[in-house]
């Protein structure tokens, strides 16, 4: 379907290659990131509609340029980069006329993951979360100009994976912890000592509120997320 990267056969290995289906209101795009840049294809892989080369800038001195973290929010596609910048692309309903609409510059370390959820209808409700290697989380409201709603500082450990569900942020960290935050305030409500090694990935089933965490300790855990009936705060219970 998509041509494999055949340019560097003698390289020390394939650099970070991420692929993500971006489900937008009127189309689905396949987005790939690699050391060469960001490529976007029609959902059947037939045509590449957009290519964005990464600007290495001063990076090449100490760090190789790469892109990491892909998510769709409304009619925008967000892609994170090694510098901490988040590139926001405005996607038209059809055709290749994709433009880089904004570069969010809140993070100072490489972006690790981006999570989004459909806007809940009201204004100023968070629908995008970006995470980086320092553990910093930034909470945004997407739009022609993304609005930063709140920031959640790191604690010396990378945040490798992040999910957003019904106003709750689930973040997985390099020390094996999963934390649940209230997106609107940035307050931590649940802290789970979930794994003995770095968390590789989180995934969430939005219909049933189940969170999955996978880590380098070879374990996978499933957690049931719910709102406490008394005060409405988020809670987590282990299922597996």
């Amino acid at each position, binding site marked *: 379907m998509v041509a494999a990267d*055949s340019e*560097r*056969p*003698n*390289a*020390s*290995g*394939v*650099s*970070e290659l991420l692929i993500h289906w971006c489900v937008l209101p009127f189309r689905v795009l396949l987005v790939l990131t690699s*050391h060469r840049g960001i490529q976007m294809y029609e959902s059947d892989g037939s045509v590449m509609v957009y290519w964005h080369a990464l600007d290495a800038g001063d990076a090449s*001195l*100490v*760090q*190789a340029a*790469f892109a990491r973290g892909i998510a769709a929010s409304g009619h925008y596609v967000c892609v994170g980069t090694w510098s901490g910048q988040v590139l926001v692309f405005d996607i038209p309903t059809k055709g290749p006329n994709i433009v880089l609409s904004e570069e969010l510059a809140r993070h100072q*370390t*490489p972006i*690790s993951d981006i999570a989004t959820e459909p806007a809940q209808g009201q204004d100023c409700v968070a629908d995008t979360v970006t995470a*980086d*290697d*320092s553990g910093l989380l930034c909470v945004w409201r997407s739009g022609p100009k993304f609005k930063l709603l709140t920031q959640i500082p790191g604690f*010396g*450990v*990378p945040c*490798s994976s992040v999910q957003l569900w019904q106003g709750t942020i689930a973040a997985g960290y*390099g*020390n*094996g*912890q999963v934390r649940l935050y209230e997106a609107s*305030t940035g*307050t*931590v*409500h*649940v*802290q*789970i*000592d*979930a*794994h*003995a*090694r*770095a968390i590789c990935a989180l995934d969430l089933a939005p219909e049933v509120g189940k969170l999955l965490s996978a880590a*380098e*300790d*070879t*374990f996978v855990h499933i957690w049931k997320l719910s709102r406490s009936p008394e*005060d409405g*705060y988020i*809670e*987590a*219970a*282990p299922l597996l």
Partner: protein
Amino acid sequence: MSMRTLPLLFLNLGGEMLYILDQRLRAQNIPGDKARKDEWTEVDRKRVMNDIISTMFNQKFMDELFKPQELYSKKALRTVYDRLAHASIMRLNQASMDKLYDLMTMAFKYQVLLCPRPKDVLLVTLNHLDAIKGLIQDSPTILHQVDKTFRQLTDIYGGLSAGEFQLIRQTLLIFFQDLHIRVSIFLKDKVQNSSGRFVLPVSGPVPWGTEVPGLIRTFNNKGKEVKRTEFKHGGSYVAAPKEGSLELYGDRVLKLGTNMYSVNRPVETHMSAASKNLASQTQESIVPNPLAKEELNLLARLIGGMEIQKPSGPEPGFRLNLFTTDEEEEQAALTRPEELSYKVINIQATQDQQTNQELVRIMGEFEITDQSRQSSSKGDDWLAMMDEL
């Protein structure tokens, strides 16, 4: 990917190489007075270790190594170790060199995989350096070189963040991806299973900075803890005792990277079963690559920093065999699967005049302390050696 990975890769692989060579040389040791002309003695062993270690820690070489850069390709790195292993009077056949390299890479892959936290790869490196210092106790000049490298290492890596170490870890693991050579010492200790995959333990101390899994804490709006729940994790972990030391002398706590070879444990690799695993591996393309020339120039600069001695007389009989018998070595060479052969790069330093001059200039700045094996001109010597590669 991280551009700070090469020094860690080089030093740890080098350390493993020294463990193996030291073990083999000791195993083939003959008491000095009883040795025939072509047999190893204690003096020879120490001589070989000193030569290799002083070449490895040559200051110019280290300065080049520590510059931020991408990892070399597997072929290029193998060439560097080929040169290093031949930095003394010792000679290795292709089969023995292949086996040596297999053991080195699988051992370091194991150590990286099992590091509790990404930063622990630094402790693994320090374990190797500590052991290397143990091998050259009688040579204060070389000890000084190693200490200098130690300081370079802690200066650069001591301050890196957890995120940067995670990137380094990923870069290393990508380098070792799809390498599943079975090593008998690992199979015996049950840390590797018969498919060549390593066994990841689910017990023992958690990494420094990680809590033992099993606790869920719930907080209210004001940050006050309102509930605690415990759950069964599945592994059987205990708290980390203490953090490993990054000082020149200190308790590293971590055992990974210490010498796992002893005189009585022959170490073998299993080739025949490994080849089945490689059926699905990607073939390395032989199409010339514009980036390869750049890489070879880098390699030539790196090797240019290596001081290599060459005996001026006829080739001495100081051959080291990594197998138990010569017949085994021949057999291994014949039956080695094609996919596993390391195509060593030939560097023709004579072609590029400018590179040639630079390398000769660097060579000219070296002092070779052992006069007995000097030949007429260091420049000619070095070039002749390169042509033979």
